[in-house]
């Protein structure tokens, strides 16, 4: 069953078309990635799906219902949650307060507490730093916090916008491990990444986006083997 179906999605900023009519779908339980270069329109796509940016045209269906034009804060209550690019954690709030913010849309205090402990178990680093403010965390820890905070809202579909951005290679590997972990726990994920290799290796299917259109869509394994992808995104010459 398709949890997310996007058809003919367009995003315009003034006269510029950042996303020029794309189709994509994410099935229940899948981990799908959307790769492409800087400025290809990946983030705009995500922002339009969750309603932070208004889509100029096209339809977005989530769980079978049309959601285009609905505000982001409502969709969070239905389990459609985005971790914004640049993490967007609250710098002056502590780790624990950040996580509490993630559960803003919920009001079941005991379950929220349990979820928080679950997230501390998933990210022991965050547990150690629960009283520290978000701004004092390292980049990797901030990304963990951003993902942890998103999990606090009990997402059904998690949209991750460049979780590896600006992180050291060892942390990038760690973040991808976490993304796989989260996926294994049953959260459906749409992952936007510039790090094409790691993204494709973690995903079951992938989309390649270039200048606002989707140029390739296939199984992640096939994309990893595709000569065009290898040349343009994996930094390999074709023999």
């Amino acid at each position, binding site marked *: 069953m398709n949890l997310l179906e996007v058809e003919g999605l367009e995003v315009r900023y003034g006269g510029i078309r950042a996303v020029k009519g794309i189709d994509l779908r994410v099935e229940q339980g899948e981990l799908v990635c959307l790769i492409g270069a800087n400025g290809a329109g990946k983030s705009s796509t995500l922002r339009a799906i969750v309603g932070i940016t208004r889509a100029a045209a096209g339809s977005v269906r989530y769980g079978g219902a049309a959601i285009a034009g609905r*505000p*982001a*804060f409502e969709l969070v209550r239905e389990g459609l949650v*985005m971790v914004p690019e640049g993490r967007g954690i*609250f*710098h*002056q709030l502590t780790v624990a307060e950040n996580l*509490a913010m993630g559960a*803003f*849309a919920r009001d079941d205090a005991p379950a929220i507490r349990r979820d928080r402990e679950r997230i501390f178990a998933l990210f022991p680093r965050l547990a150690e730093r629960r009283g520290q403010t978000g701004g004092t965390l390292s980049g990797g820890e901030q990304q963990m916090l951003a993902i942890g905070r998103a999990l606090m809202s009990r997402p059904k579909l998690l949209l991750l916008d460049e979780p590896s951005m600006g992180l050291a290679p060892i942390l990038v590997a760690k973040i991808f491990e976490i993304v796989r972990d989260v996926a294994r726990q049953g959260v459906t994920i749409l992952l936007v990444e510039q790090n094409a290799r790691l993204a494709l290796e973690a995903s079951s299917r992938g989309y390649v986006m270039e200048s606002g259109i989707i140029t390739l869509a296939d199984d992640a394994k096939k994309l990893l083997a595709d000569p065009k992808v290898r040349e343009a995104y994996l930094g390999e010459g074709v023999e």
Partner: protein
Amino acid sequence: MKGRNPALIWVGAGLVAIALLALPFALAQAGTAWVRITNFAILYVLLALGLNIVVGFAGLLDLGYIAFYALGAYVYALLASPHFNLHLPFWLTLPFGALVACLFGVLLGAPTLKLRGDYLAIVTLGFGEIIRIFLNNLARPVNITNGPQGVSRIDPFRLGGFDFGKSETLFGLAFSAPIKYYYFLLAVMIVVIITTIRLQNSRIGRAWEAVREDETAARAMGIDTTSIKLLAFAIGASFGGLAGGMFSAIQGFISPESFVLVESIMVVSMVVLGGMGNVWGVILGAVLLSFAPEVLRYTVEPVQKSLFGRSLVEPEVIRMLLFGLAMVLIMRFRPAGLLPSAVRKRELAERKE
């Protein structure tokens, strides 16, 4: 307050309560003027608390806040004075004034929601001036506000036979009009303080905090940022309107001159100086800034006379000089205010790094 002896807290609260109850009689010894000054200080506390919700909690800089005070004052004045020959009771006009101010808060908030920082400040500044200019000019063709002459002979609060505007002796104590108002204001202030603290610690308070820090992230958390910002404007404005109505009744006369830009800036200063976002800091700021000029008024002249034998500088000039100096010093040495909120302190510390 964690870890402190609850019994001690109750004793402390009891002592503060007794001091606040006895205060007007002590002040009356020095002259009724001081009771009146205290009443105005309480009005400023209400204004500062209201503005603190907009500026301190939600992080929206509002430089036209005094307009809500003006609206509350005029609603009360027009509905309870010989101007329209209306004399509605205060328990009706006072909440109505707050409601009107609240509506205007939403009216100002709705179109400016997309603005932030400096741009919002400019629009709100304009709004404050527009309200004042309207009040100044709504005398023709139909006389609504009586223009620059203002509205006079405004009714004091009356409840049955109890008239706040008259002196009387109760239980052997002389209750002058300002003393009666003092107790009323004190009660309102306590309600407003409790409301503010409860708001700050509620879901709404947390949502304001999130909006102040990062609006996009706040929306991604499921916070309806539009409504939450409007709510800050509405609640802040209604506190202002409430204070305005009481100002009208106490003063008995109002004119647009009472609601100039400097007044808005004064309230912003109280909030910033005391400690944006910290209720007690804001109260301290309001009390200090409303008493300081009065104290100076009574000391500047005699001090100059004894030092130089005559008055060299007018009190008003020296007042502003000292006021400016105090502001500079406080901003230099306590940039987050006298009693900073925990989060603000962190913000400033982070910016320094």
